[in-house]
């Protein structure tokens, strides 16, 4: 006696349905990551307090006009040369910090006309209201770059690894907390050597 075969349910179209969904999600997926330059705004000054006077030699002024041209320390400069100029200014170490200690790790020219100590050196960026945001960000990028290069140099000297690399490890959510705490401590030491002091002055017209 021949047994009658029960026909199998045809599952062939399942793949098609799954494919449709797959293609939908493929198209809508964006592996978007937020990256950017972190910055801390200065707090509002309490009323009646006059800002401290900063010596001209400790101030590195970058002016960006509405035609997106740069005036660095009273000289017209191309954006390409900004990073080097900022580095030289920060690394100068011509004098002493607040405690009267000279900068032992600075490798600059020790020019008495330039900044005293990385702790005192301030970079001031002033821009016009019509300045392009792109140009402003390029300037910021170069200045942060100058700081990062100097911090990397010190991190290599003290811990034999780059500061920027430590920074990315700390930002990784999958890294163990104990590793992060250790790195954060090291980063604080280096941040102390070259504290980021970039002032974004209110726009002038």
């Amino acid at each position: 006696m021949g047994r009658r075969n029960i026909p199998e349910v045809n599952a062939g179209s399942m793949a098609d349905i799954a494919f449709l969904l797959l293609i939908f999600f493929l198209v809508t997926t964006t592996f978007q990551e937020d990256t950017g330059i972190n910055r801390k705004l200065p707090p509002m000054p309490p009323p009646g307090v006059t800002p401290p006077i900063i010596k001209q030699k400790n101030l590195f002024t970058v002016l960006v006009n509405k035609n997106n041209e740069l005036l660095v320390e009273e000289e017209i400069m191309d954006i390409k040369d900004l990073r080097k100029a900022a580095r030289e200014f920060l690394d100068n170490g011509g004098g002493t910090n607040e405690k009267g200690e000279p900068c032992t790790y600075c490798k600059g020219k020790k020019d008495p006309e330039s900044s005293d100590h990385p702790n005192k050196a301030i970079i001031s960026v002033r821009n016009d209201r019509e300045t392009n945001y792109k140009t402003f960000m390029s300037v910021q990028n170069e200045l942060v770059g100058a700081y990062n290069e100097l911090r990397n140099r010190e991190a290599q000297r003290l811990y034999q690894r780059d500061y920027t690399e430590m920074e990315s490890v700390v930002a990784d959510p999958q890294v163990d907390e104990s590793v992060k705490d250790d790195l954060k401590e090291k980063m604080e030491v280096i941040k102390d050597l070259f504290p980021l002091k970039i002032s974004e002055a209110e726009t002038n017209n």
Partner: protein
Amino acid sequence: MSKFKKKKSGELPPVSTAALPDIVFMLLFFFMTVTTFKKDDYKVAQDFPYADQVQKLDKNDPIIYIYAGKPHERYQSDVGTQAKIQLNDKFASVDEIKDYWFNTLNNDVGQEFRYVAITALKVDGETNMGLVADIKQQLREINALKINYTTRKGEAGQNYK
């Protein structure tokens, strides 16, 4: 007659495609889990400047977004072509930033992050600094001092093309 017949001919059996749905489902679930839908619909241009000295922002960080840029073409008849601020999915004026910031902090981010919340400024590259300065001034006034200028990763020289 021999009882031992040759059962198989020399032909290859057809390749079974029964596992195909499984494979496709696996891919499907992968993409379903990694897909994140955009939070807000951008009404302004979002072509960020390039920078290479960047830091990553983790999705789990307490972040408050502020968008700014030139309105997209289809909104230009209503709001003009000047660069605008967008909060949530509406165009807004500068003095709405403070309310928006506290609303987002209380409702989405959590009040405990009052002093650690990062305000991400997603500003289009072609915007004038005046608008950005206005936003920054508002944030200073409410003591929301941690900001992040969102950029694209790349050589900064590309900004001049």
